[in-house]
């Protein structure tokens, strides 16, 4: 009862005259009341303030996403008023900047997927095996040394990778295959594979490490070798996480821009000739953005149409990986 009165009294003082310094004195003089009652209003205020700040921070990213989608969709819809969506999705000639304009996006999609495929062929086996090594075989000390190196690899700016592809990998390829073009898909794809390798390895390793020790022991107790334990028990048990890592890697490869813009060239074409130049969706966006295409023209709007398609592709990939993780995750107690 006494304390309640005290709190009301102090509360009145707080709202009334607001004697900040004195207030502190009073509370320090009565330690019990201090912790329980005095700052209640102020604390509530601070709590509400913190709540609001945190909410705003979270809202910023959501609003940004919404804004991007809004912009993309607006210009994309304008584009499809001029170009039938069917022509866009099924056409095999992409010449929006030429006099004889044609808006078939398939060459760009083809280029994107071919580069991504090369990247995945490089990144998935090496990434998975590094993950297995780190999680199952490496002694703690080796693991502690290798993990940071992988992270450094992940931190290299992609423009560096781009020039690495163009100035280091391409010449080697040209030595081996003389018909290799200066800008070619193989070089860009291989280097992109090394770029996504750390992500592939790191996510797969996380997936392998959460496989319970008891499963490994159960397999060892049946007379399995370490390799048999790893390949037939640990990897299958971690499969959902590994699949997610693969899909995220593909998604990253599809969205990657700098390497392909520098090393893969700008020739939109359908095909599978890895030694020739191809243009990806991202490279096209760079090409037009850097050019002098005037706004409010159809050429300008192709940017948004291609951007929307790119966004949808990576979006679906990410949803898919999320779904796989949820659907196929084994729940261990």
């Amino acid at each position, binding site marked *: 009862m006494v304390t309640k009165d005290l709190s009301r009294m102090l509360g009145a003082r707080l709202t009334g005259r607001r004697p900040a310094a004195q207030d502190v004195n009073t509370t320090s003089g009565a330690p019990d009341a201090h912790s329980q009652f005095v700052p209640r209003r102020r604390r509530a205020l601070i709590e509400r303030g913190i709540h609001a700040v945190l909410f705003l921070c979270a809202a910023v990213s959501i609003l940004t996403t919404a804004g991007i989608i809004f912009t993309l969709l607006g210009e994309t819809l304008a584009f499809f008023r001029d170009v039938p969506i069917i022509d866009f999705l099924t056409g095999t000639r992409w010449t929006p900047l030429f006099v004889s304009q044609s808006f078939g996006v398939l060459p760009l999609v083809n280029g994107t997927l071919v580069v991504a495929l090369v990247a995945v062929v490089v990144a998935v086996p090496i990434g998975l095996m590094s993950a297995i090594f780190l999680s199952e075989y490496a002694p703690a000390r080796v693991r502690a040394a290798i993990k940071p190196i992988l992270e450094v690899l992940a931190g290299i700016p992609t423009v560096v990778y781009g020039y690495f592809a163009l100035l280091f990998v391409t010449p080697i390829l040209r030595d081996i295959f003389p018909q290799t073009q200066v800008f070619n898909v193989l070089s860009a794809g291989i280097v992109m594979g090394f770029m996504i390798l750390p992500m592939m390895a790191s996510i797969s390793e996380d997936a392998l490490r959460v496989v319970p020790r008891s499963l490994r022991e*159960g397999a*060892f107790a*049946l007379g399995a070798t370490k390799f048999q334990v790893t390949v037939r028990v640990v990897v*299958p048990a971690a499969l959902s996480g590994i699949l997610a890592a693969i899909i995220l890697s593909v998604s990253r490869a599809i969205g990657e821009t700098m390497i392909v813009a520098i090393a893969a060239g700008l020739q939109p074409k359908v095909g599978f000739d890895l030694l020739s130049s191809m243009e990806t969706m991202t490279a096209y966006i760079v090409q037009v953005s850097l050019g002098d295409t005037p706004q409010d023209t159809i050429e300008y709007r192709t940017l948004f149409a291609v951007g929307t398609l790119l966004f949808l592709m990576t979006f679906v990939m990410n949803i898919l990986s999320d779904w796989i993780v949820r659907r196929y995750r084994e729940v261990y107690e």
Partner: protein
Amino acid sequence: MEAGTAGTRRPDVALDLSANDSASANGPVKPDVLVTENLKFWYGSMMALSGISLNIPQHEVMAIIGPSGCGKSTYLRCLNRMNDLISSARVEGRVIFDGKNIYARNVDAVQMRRRIGMVFQKPNPFPKSIYDNIAYGPKVNGYRGSMDDLVEHSLRQAALWDEVKDDLKKSGLELSGGQQQRLCIARALAVEPDVILMDEPCSALDPIATTRIEDLIRELRENYTIVIVTHNMQQAARVSDRTAFFMLDEDGAGSLVEVDETQRLFTTPSDQRTEDYITGRFG
């Protein structure tokens, strides 16, 4: 008979005891399948077992009881070198199986584990179908016979066949806890081991599932040697032929206090500490 007071002498006494018993109580002498000689074990610098000597006779159930943290499980895991998987572990002494020290340099732990199977405290079926759970062991060991027959035989032995025979494709993780544990036992049986080590196999199960596993253990004794760690003295009394009592010695390392025929250990223990433990005065 008095157990010695010094940790080093105690195992010898226990050894004599078990030798006498198998001769006197159980008619014909059963050969020892596993012989542990002065087994010492460390986790890093911490000694967890201070020289255990224990003989495990064939086709018997040996129960290991004792208060929590007294090294029962650690000892059990030494018997098939499961502790190899812990990097800081160190072992001294010998575990003789089939005439060979399993810790000898030229012994292949993988081969040895095929003959000394293990069932763990918590059921740990693989996230695979029931069928594949059983088939895993035989497959990695290069089994060439009819897998279907082996799966059925193993599940029958583990008294699980009737409950799962129509649904062998179902994931092992979808079974109940008791069924999962019997699946793990079936999985262990499928590689036809000589010895099965069980580390508190019922601690995560309800009483009904526990009863079924206990019945199963008694049946399996006909063909297998079983070593079971349990914190449940009634369980030890129900299922085992012989019981070993472990507790921590003065230095905080697990040691063997005494081993005897189960009946005798629970009625007339020779060591005061055993009596104190089984009458519930500590632990």
